[in-house]
């Protein structure tokens, strides 16, 4: 098993590298660079802050300081028009220029080997430090909501798969379909308007993660203070993912309950609950594990909205701000972390497969 996992991990590295390289290159294709808009805007208005030439010089200084003046990659493709002017028909072939190691990608990749994701253009802080800070909140949010979603999906599926639960099944499945049609932002806003509003019910805090407190708080105290603030965001994420997961689990359970060995278990006189939990559930979990491993990106996408609505400083919001500001090191850093998490979740899924089904374990051996 360990050998298998090690091999999976080795396969993961080149995939990850290609993915991250593509993200690095594609992020730079976005129009505009960090600070460009702000510097040029200083020239517009009822008076101009510096001449066009001075603003251009300042922008060039910014590009040089952040290495953005260097070529993007080892090779550059010359624009077609230039090629056309210099040769006959040779423009049909790409005209490549070798830039050597003095390029943005090389500098970034070399730093990555030393464990650095670079520094934010905006705050000069190391990207890893910024990510660690933001991920602290997002991880809690993701883990708690994922755990709750799984537990609830299991409970609901088990309860509605039973033969006697026809009415319950109809009501719950209809409710889940309705819930699935709600966009996350709408669910978030509805929860706020219903449960954090003096005009309706004012049960939960509206925003953020606690208020200002003089002095430092212990980890536990900080968790206690933050907990009420996390309730609505967690409910929102759970409601967003619950219909999809429950539907998968329910379908899988229903299929498993048709199997011969389940009939045998029933024939032995085992109670319905025991048949489902002890015999059917384990097999029904197999396809669901794949769904679970795919849940992470969906949840990260969900946190972008949740963190904005509930004003929680997390990775989702950081990504949006960084894209808008063209803070490339932070954008690439976030994608690297999400890609690693995604790869790891696949490996965890493999382990769970092996645990759920001994045949897989034996095959791997």
């Amino acid at each position, binding site marked *: 098993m360990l050998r298998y996992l090690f091999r999976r991990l080795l396969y993961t590295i080149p995939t990850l590298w290609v993915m991250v390289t593509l993200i690095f290159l594609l992020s730079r294709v976005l*129009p*505009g660079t960090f*600070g*460009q*808009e*702000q*510097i*040029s805007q*200083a*020239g*517009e*208005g*009822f*008076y*101009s*802050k*510096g*001449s*066009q030439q*001075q*603003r251009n*010089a*300042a*922008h060039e*200084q*910014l590009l040089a*300081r952040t290495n953005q003046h260097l070529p993007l990659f080892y090779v550059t493709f010359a624009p077609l028009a230039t090629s056309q002017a210099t040769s006959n028909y040779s423009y049909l072939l790409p005209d490549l220029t070798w830039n050597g190691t003095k390029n943005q990608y090389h500098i970034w990749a070399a730093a990555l080997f030393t464990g650095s994701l670079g520094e934010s253009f*905006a*705050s*000069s*802080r190391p990207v890893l430090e*910024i990510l660690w*800070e*933001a991920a602290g909140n997002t991880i809690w949010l993701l883990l708690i909501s994922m755990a709750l979603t799984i537990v609830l999906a299991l409970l609901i599926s088990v309860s509605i798969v039973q033969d006697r639960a026809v009415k319950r099944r109809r009501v719950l499945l209809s409710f889940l379909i309705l819930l699935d049609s709600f966009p996350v932002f709408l669910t978030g*806003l509805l929860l*706020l*308007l219903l449960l*954090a*509003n*003096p*005009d309706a019910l*004012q*049960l939960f*805090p*509206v*925003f*953020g*993660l606690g*208020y*200002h407190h003089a002095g430092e708080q212990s980890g536990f105290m900080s968790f206690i203070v933050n907990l*009420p603030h996390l309730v609505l965001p967690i409910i929102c994420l759970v409601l967003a993912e619950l219909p999809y997961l429950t539907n998968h689990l329910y379908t899988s359970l229903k299929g498993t309950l048709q199997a011969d060995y389940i009939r045998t278990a029933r024939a032995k006189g085992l109670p319905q609950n025991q048949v489902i939990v002890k015999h059917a559930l384990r097999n029904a979990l197999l396809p669901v594990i794949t769904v679970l491993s795919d849940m992470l990106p969906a949840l990260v996408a969900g946190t972008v909205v949740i963190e904005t*609505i*509930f*004003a*929680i*400083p997390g990775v989702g919001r*950081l990504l949006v*701000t960084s894209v*808008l*500001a063209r803070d490339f090191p932070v954008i690439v850093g976030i994608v690297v972390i999400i890609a690693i998490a995604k790869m790891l979740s696949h490996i965890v899924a493999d382990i769970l497969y092996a645990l759920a089904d001994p045949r897989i374990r034996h095959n791997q051996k």
Partner: protein
Amino acid sequence: MRKVHRLLYSLAIFLSFCSQPQRQPDEVRVRLSSDPQTLSPVNYSDSNGLQVINLLFHSLLGADLEDDQLKPVLAKSLPLIEQKDSVTLITYELREEAEWTNGSPVTSDDIAFTLKVLKAPLVQNEMMKPQVAFIRDLIQDKENKRRFTLVCDGFTPEMELLSGDFFILPAYLFDPENLLKSIPVAAFTDSLSKLENNKNVKAFAAWFNTPAFNNNGQTLQGSAGYLLEKWVPGQTLTLKQKKNWWGKEAKASNLTANPKRITLQVIPDNTTALLATKNGQLDVLSDIAALEFDKLKSNKDFLKNYELHTPQSYSSVYVGINSRLPKFSDKQTRQAIAYLLDVANFIKVTQQQYATPTVGIIPPNVTAYYNTNLKPYAFNVTKAKQLLQAAGWQERNNGWFRTINGKEQPLTIAISYKAGNTVLESSALIFQQSAAKLNIPVQVEAQEGNLFNQNLKAHNFEVFLRTLTGNPFAFNFTALLHTSFAEKGGTNYTGFGNAESDALLQAINTAPNPEQKALHLKKLQQVMQEEATFIPLYYQKERIAIHKRFGNAKISGLKPNYDVSAFELKQ
């Protein structure tokens, strides 16, 4: 049943523990829509950062939001300005009481140091650097450490404002090893290539370009009345009042630090911010959506605790037409488009009437310069039709056509705006409907911010909708309207202007007195209206709610629309 009871008890305990915490009465809690990118006083790039830095650092001059006037802050009085040949000399004297956090006085050494940091190569100062490029040198008064003269290139009317509009840094804290002291200010004005290799400049840049000068309260200590107590990124910024702050002795109405603590709470979503205000968790909320603002006006519970304000802002919405395009090159076609802009409807739908139509670029509340003899373009399809016919356009079943450069061309309009701006989006859609009444097809294009700006600079647009932020202090429209800025990459995007309008812009800048200036500015508004290339539509009104327990809020049309440092707790 026992399970249900247990569940109910747990829920009750949980909900009681979720209740809103008590507020400290002397704390003002303000909403920020996003985290400041940096708090560096020489490299800030967003209005949120500026709002916070204003509470930590002082500049020589600043706007007093009480009356929207430019007033001395660190300076003792407004500067003395002398024009000599090709240079302008601007002389300042600093307040005697002004001191840094450690009690040492603010002197002209600090001003010289600040200019060096702002102008130095290799240093993170790109956002502010162009603003002080016109200052060539600083001459210190040998007998008075608080008096100095700035030597500036040429003369522009905004020089007074710009010469005093940068934050002054404490040399003792920012350069404890005096790395820049031996280099004169003038050395930073000429070619900077030599300085790029200067050992001291390199050492200073390495020391200064660190996060400590972007976000650390221990380092970011200026002469203003607050200290940065804590910054939790993406969440809160907390500022605490300085003890024994010198400004209290200065007895100047624009030098204030009244609240003991100011918390700036980052809440990106407008609905969330509004709910937080209704919950009493915020004391100040600005940029309230017009529709919500109307609802608040009739919410008695809300009005018990909050006061609503709608100051006239200096922010306008305008339409730009690319006059370089053959189909828009004649003024009658542009005027016809202007008559199809239903400004009254724009204001009604997007601003819920919280805006004032304008005849030109000057804000209507700057009464001395606003041309009251003109009338804004009003939606008029008949007039637009007549103008199009006069311009040579022929109406057919499938639209309007004209022969341009030997080819018959249809009249179509593509109107672009920055994606995400719902006000501009609605306005563009209203325009589309209005133009349809005259059988003119309009294509509405939302463009990503950077792409939109790149297209404007490359003149790759037909018509655009945009906002423009002004002020009541300086009216130099050269960059926006002069033909020398109409090249690709320049800031005169619409291609407005000719020799006559260029001369008018020059006359505005060199006007010897306010009366002459008013005359030229009124003429400019008339020319702009006739040309219909750059069409200002309306000036917005801000929409702000402030908790009633505070007085002296200094509500203003200038951002951030209130002076939080002036807030006084009512008895």
